[in-house]
């Protein structure tokens, strides 16, 4: 039997298929209920209306069934609310390699904000501009590079 944590962590996000739900930070915990022996996976949505949640739940159950845990339970929690700060370094690198500019750290209250340029994931240029604050999925905005002229997605800091 595959370790349930590893099985759940390997599930990829259905809308951004280069990154796993673990790297995206939406996999909160994988535990085994000591009384029943059932695996309980806890996930949290990026956005409240994220339409990928049903698919993610089904994919997690399927992955755990394949790993020898056919009765795994998937729970959804909303607190603490997901933040892009939970995206791992390997997740950020994969987003960038897939042409999606990763988010800057979320601004903290009482901290002087440092606005970093969004770098073009294709040519690395900081000469970029926002085209639209909303993009192809709830978590992305549409940007354009002024150096290489390519449009690209940017995962919004949340």
């Amino acid at each position, binding site marked *: 039997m595959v370790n349930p944590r590893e099985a759940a962590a390997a599930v990829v996000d259905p809308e951004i298929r280069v990154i796993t739900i673990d790297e995206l930070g939406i996999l909160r915990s994988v535990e085994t209920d000591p009384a029943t022996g059932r695996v309980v996976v806890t996930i949290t949505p990026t956005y409240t209306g994220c339409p990928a949640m049903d698919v993610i739940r089904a994919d997690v159950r399927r992955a755990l069934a394949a790993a020898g845990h056919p009765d795994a339970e998937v729970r959804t929690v909303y607190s603490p609310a997901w933040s892009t700060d939970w995206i791992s370094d390997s997740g950020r690198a994969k987003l960038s390699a897939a042409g999606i500019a990763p988010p800057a750290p979320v601004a903290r209250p009482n901290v002087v904000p440092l606005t970093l340029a969004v770098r073009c994931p294709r040519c690395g240029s900081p000469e970029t501009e926002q085209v639209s604050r*909303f993009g192809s999925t709830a978590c992305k905005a549409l940007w354009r590079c002024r150096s290489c002229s390519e449009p690209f997605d940017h995962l919004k800091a949340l």
Partner: protein
Amino acid sequence: MSADLFDFVLGLGDDALIAAQRLGEWTSRAPEMEEDIALANIALDQLGAARLLLTYAGELEGAGRDEDALAYLRGDREFRNCLLVELPNGDFAVTMAKLFFLSAYQLPLYDALAGCGDERLAAIGAKARKESAYHLDHSSLWVRRLGDGTEESHRRMQEAVDQVWPYTHELFAADPAAPVDPAGLRAGFEATVEPVLTEATLTRPGDGFTPGGGRQGLHTEHLSFLLAEMQVLHRAHPGARW
């Protein structure tokens, strides 16, 4: 207490649900592609909040109604949303005025809920406030752009603000038993809204006309038409699945 809390949560859930339905009407009809995507995204956020709130309302009621039963199987008099969200979309300026005032109310509301004693509402508030901040940012940008734009855009944005403003009063009707009393949010709302109107060269309307009744189930004629469209499939084919 539980019945009061049910009404409160139902009202907030209905606000988000009806706002989502109205914003969704813009899909494929917005003035430009980027705005089409933006409005659909905001509608989706509102729908997400509505689902969490209506699910919780159903549990508080304890009568076995889930989010779908509450959304699709109630008549207009049983809806508790504010009148603001059911008003027709009008032109783009009216839609932006509605969204601007709604998000300037929802943001401090969700923020206050995030710190309230009810664990479920606190979790929903902490989640939804992040999304409301984007809605407020987006709509205030358009209010400034249109208000401080051309003569025609200024005229239409001012008309929109004048038309929608009276409906903002209902949002802050006192409800001292609620986890967050909306009456306490009015000052913050005005502190958010007034500088944007000023920057947009728009005049803040007067406060004479204050329509209300939505929280008691007394709606404008527009809600019935909206519900007819939203509920028709579920009512024609109860329990249908695909």
